[in-house]
């Protein structure tokens, strides 16, 4: 007759020789189960705090970006009528997405139908596929005119993914500011993309020429024309990655059609 008393079973298991098959399996199972509970517990319990950290970081970067844009702080201080709103946009239709709010965006992005596979020719920012739905920020003046749009960007740098935000001024063709949210670039070299001195060189640069082609780029030893920003010495690949990221996202596969729609006053 099988003895089902758990204590006696446990003691029987411990008394087994270490090399017996039953004990090996039992120990393997117990260790895996306990470790799984530990890892799952930590992940699930700490997830809300981590999400909050990421949201706070994003908010802080957004505020810092707004604070850096020349003249904007004065405009914001003068007028209480400037409102910053968060909008989810559909990039393929160049309009605000129907029925999707920033809260429901993560769920919508889990659906692969909301992603576009990029061909190697299109994929200059090395993304593989890009989301059709993006959360952007619109700063509206007293007359409901869009004064500034802030667009999230992502690309692939020398040391991993780069996340950034670019602010585009009211003519929808001038960069007002740029900020880097996260990156894995080499400290002291590529990581200098986060330094204000370099990022502020983007302010006032034009995005596309009269034909609509995106010309904004990062140029080695250049930075002379109205489209060019001087590259970071010793960080060629990071500089190129930044240029590719901006060209991709401001171009026809990215926010290009949206910026045109805003310029036409559709927002």
């Amino acid at each position: 007759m099988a003895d089902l008393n758990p204590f006696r079973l446990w003691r029987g298991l411990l008394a087994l020789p270490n090399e017996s098959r039953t004990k090996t399996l039992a120990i393997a199972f117990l260790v895996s189960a306990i470790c799984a509970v530990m890892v799952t517990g930590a992940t699930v319990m700490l997830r809300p705090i981590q999400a909050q950290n990421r949201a706070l970081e994003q908010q802080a970067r957004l505020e810092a970006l707004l604070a850096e844009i020349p003249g904007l702080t004065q405009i914001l201080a003068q007028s209480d009528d400037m409102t910053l709103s968060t909008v989810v946009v559909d990039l393929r239709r160049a309009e605000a997405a129907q029925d999707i709010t920033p809260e429901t965006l993560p769920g919508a992005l889990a659906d692969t139908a909301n992603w576009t596979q990029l061909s190697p020719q299109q994929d200059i920012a090395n993304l593989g596929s890009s989301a059709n739905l993006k959360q952007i920020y619109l700063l509206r003046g007293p007359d409901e005119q869009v004064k500034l749009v802030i667009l999230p960007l992502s690309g692939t740098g020398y040391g991993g993914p780069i996340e950034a935000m670019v602010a585009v001024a009211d003519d929808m063709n001038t960069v007002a500011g740029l900020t880097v949210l996260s990156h894995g670039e080499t400290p002291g070299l590529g990581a200098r993309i986060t330094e204000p001195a370099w990022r502020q060189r983007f302010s006032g640069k034009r995005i596309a020429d009269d034909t609509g082609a995106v010309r904004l780029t990062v140029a080695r030893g250049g930075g002379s024309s109205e489209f060019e920003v001087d590259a970071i010495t010793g960080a060629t690949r990071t500089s190129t990655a930044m240029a590719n990221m901006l060209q991709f996202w401001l171009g026809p596969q990215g926010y290009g059609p949206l910026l045109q729609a805003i310029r036409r006053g559709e927002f």
Partner: protein
Amino acid sequence: MAGWTTVTDPILRQNPVTLQILGICSALAVTTTLAAALTMGAALTLVVVTAGAIISMIRAHLPSSIRLIVQIIIVASLVIVIDQFLQAFFYEMSQRLSVFVSLIATNCVVLGRTESFALHNRPLPAMADGLGNGLGYSLVLAIVGSVRELFGQGTLLGYAILPTVEQGGWYEPLSLMLLAPSAFFLLGGLVWAIRSWRREQIETPEYSLAPTRDAGT
């Protein structure tokens, strides 16, 4: 006192990095700033102490055929928990350490200690041994980290020590210090310095590591 030397020995005399040349990968990767090096050292110390305690507690019932897998599972789980904890409460730092906290799981210092010490000793000595090795590892990381941060950026823990040219000072930062090769040079120099001072650490050509300790990357 035997317990005390278990802690102090690995700090200098039996240092896991400079004598046993273990854990080099992370010593190169996270030492660009002192703060990152200290956080990494603290995380590793915590992992090696806890893993030592747990593995020492179950050592009598650990089938030897699966003992390495069990040790790695325990170490990896602890590392994930610590990584999640850092992401929740030290977000900035976890962003800077990025993947290297998770890579503690593959750090030979941890597996080396659990395999060679915790498996054969009681929980308390195992924890003392883990603490000593963790501190020894942290010490080397802190030394390399301070030199790299000081000469690479002119700062220590973020405070400006050498005013750099960019901020209007006189010091031209040494960019090499921020790249991985400089950590190799510094580590090599450190090993050389310690072995010139303590000649007993110099390996004779016939010298071979004990079989239980020869996991080394």
